């Protein structure tokens, strides 16, 4: 017996940070399945180049910061995949690369990489792309006729109008709810299939890879505001249905809002954070220029999270009080 010393505890209760990230990765990969079956391997190449860019940028940043090559955690892959899934499938392949580079090199690495980034890198990358190339971010091909997209080349296509854009124009989307559940409508690559996103949410929840407070409050506030202030003339319930299923709201709620790193520490703070992001998102939808802006809402909430933490501290009396 060759015994070693080690520090307690010798049993652990929770998944490790790395295994939480791996669960998220698995959920994101599950979202790629339906588009791949339907449109050929372009979704995979898109996800691949995006993740690769993030990896290269992460290594570059590590070289600059520590002089070492090693990448210690899979968070870059989460960023890359989320970005690819937020893009339209017909976007040129350099678009996810550019936004991935922005996400890692500007929104993450300068702050000290994983665990210290004050903004969700994927949200920052998507916002960057939406601001610089709105034309590319918001034109979607029309998926009503089945066809396969080329794996690498830029593609010509008939554009379709996404549900989010129709809502923005004050019209009722002409899409069957069933198609929206399976993502068979014009929209970003990975955000359409509401059923799969919902299954991913359950997976993340039950494997304890994500907390529930922020996403639940986010979705609840979105639904509430959609019911109270419908953008189109219809019953509140229909409005809720269309608002929740259109654009990247659901996807953003499950994968962007649930990211614990830029969120407040406390459970109640996380709830407030989610609610704030939801309110911001609905405000963007009502008054903003873009047809969807989950990433803007998330960035705004990220910026507010230190304030939220501070407010929770005040209320609980955790601060400015000598030990007693």
């Amino acid at each position, binding site marked *: 017996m*060759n015994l070693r010393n080690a520090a307690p505890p*010798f049993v652990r209760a929770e998944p490790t940070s790395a295994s939480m990230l791996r669960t998220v990765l698995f959920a994101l990969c599950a979202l790629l399945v339906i588009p791949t079956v339907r449109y050929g391997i372009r979704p995979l190449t898109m996800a691949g180049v995006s993740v690769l860019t993030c990896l290269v940028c992460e290594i570059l940043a590590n070289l600059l910061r520590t002089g070492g090559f090693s990448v210690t955690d899979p968070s870059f892959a989460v960023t890359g995949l989320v970005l690819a899934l937020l893009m339209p499938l017909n976007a040129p392949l350099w678009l996810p690369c550019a936004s991935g580079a922005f996400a890692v090199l500007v929104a993450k690495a300068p702050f000290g990489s994983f665990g210290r980034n004050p903004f969700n890198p994927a949200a920052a990358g998507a916002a960057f792309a939406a601001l610089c190339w709105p034309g590319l971010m918001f034109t979607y091909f029309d998926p009503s006729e089945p066809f396969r997209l080329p794996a690498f080349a830029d593609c010509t296509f008939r554009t379709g109008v996404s549900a989010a854009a129709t809502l923005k124009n004050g019209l009722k989307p002409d899409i069957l709810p069933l198609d929206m559940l399976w993502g068979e409508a014009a929209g970003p690559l990975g955000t359409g299939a509401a059923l799969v996103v919902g299954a991913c949410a359950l997976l993340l929840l039950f494997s304890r890879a994500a907390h529930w407070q922020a996403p639940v409050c986010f979705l609840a506030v979105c639904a509430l505001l959609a019911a109270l202030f419908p953008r189109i003339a219809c019953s509140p319930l229909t409005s809720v249905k269309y608002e929740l299923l259109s654009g990247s709201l659901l996807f953003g709620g499950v994968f962007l809002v649930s990211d*614990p790193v830029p969120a407040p520490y406390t459970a109640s703070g996380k709830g407030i954070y989610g609610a704030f992001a939801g309110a911001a998102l609905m405000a963007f939808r009502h008054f903003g220029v873009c047809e969807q802006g989950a990433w803007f809402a998330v960035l705004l909430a990220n910026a507010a999270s230190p304030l939220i933490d501070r407010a929770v501290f005040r209320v609980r009396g955790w601060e400015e009080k000598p030990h007693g």
Partner: protein
Amino acid sequence: MIPHGVRLEPRKGVPLKNGIVRLPGPEPVSAPQTFAPLKKNAGPSRIIAAAEKAGIVDESDGMPLGKKLSRLARRGPGLLIARCFDEDPCTSSARAVFREDAEKVAAGLKLAARACGAEEKRLAVASRGEARRLRGLRLGIPAVVAGRRYPAGILLMRKLCRNGGRAAFLGAQACAALADAAREGKPQSETVVTVAGDGVRRPVNCRVRIGTPVEKVLRLAKPEEDVRIAAVGSAVAGRTVRDLSLPVTAATRCVIALRDAPPERRYPCIRCGRCARACPAGVIPWLVYRELESGDPDPLLFFHAGDCAGCRACNAVCPSGIDLAAEVRRAAARKEGGEG
């Protein structure tokens, strides 16, 4: 912050129905030096003297029982509780002792309560099932169920003391030893140790002579060849031993043999907030950690760091593997050092 503790998954433990195995002591044993048994209605000072003469050590905190009782007598605890439950998920020695002879534990607790003038006494048991069993035995001492969450002892204590009550714990083995000392004048010479972990093929609860080398105890459980870690005391807050010839003491509640060291990889804090929910003492470990990391800590934010009980629940939940207990200790030392 309401302390929640941690739910630790129960491990492959020792089947309680197997009872306690006795490890044969080193042959010819010198006859235990005995003293006169106590009379039926001996007073407090006699009971404390008997505890001292018997050399009983409380396994729950490693304190000599006589000293503990006289200290408690001065303070006057409202409630005296015998710990018949185990906190960490690998150990079952306290439950095994309670299963084997609940009557003796209860008798010891009664004596101890008389010695320190406790008004009330309880047996803290691990589960509702145990509480039912206790009621069936009609020992005249009510049960209180300690929760499943680690650290059950501290959480139970907080619950009982919430309304300003005072309570104190005694170990089940110390109670049983006190009963033995009072009845037969026997010193405490043996202790019950759980040997478990994924590095042993036959986990057991064994009764061994105090001072037996750890190796002998471990061998009883048929250890695998590739055991890397041997930990004593607790699977959550214990310490590793490398020298297996060290003796078993009365406070050794378990020997855990593991084939793999726990992963040492650390990640940055991901702000999940789990450590603060787990802490039974109301410390906010991530806040302490963040302040210490920042290089210019603000001692006003070392919230309750001095109250840390060293239970390491925070370490057990942290997904990033940060040694939060050590950080909290560092912060408490800083505060004590007058820098605050």
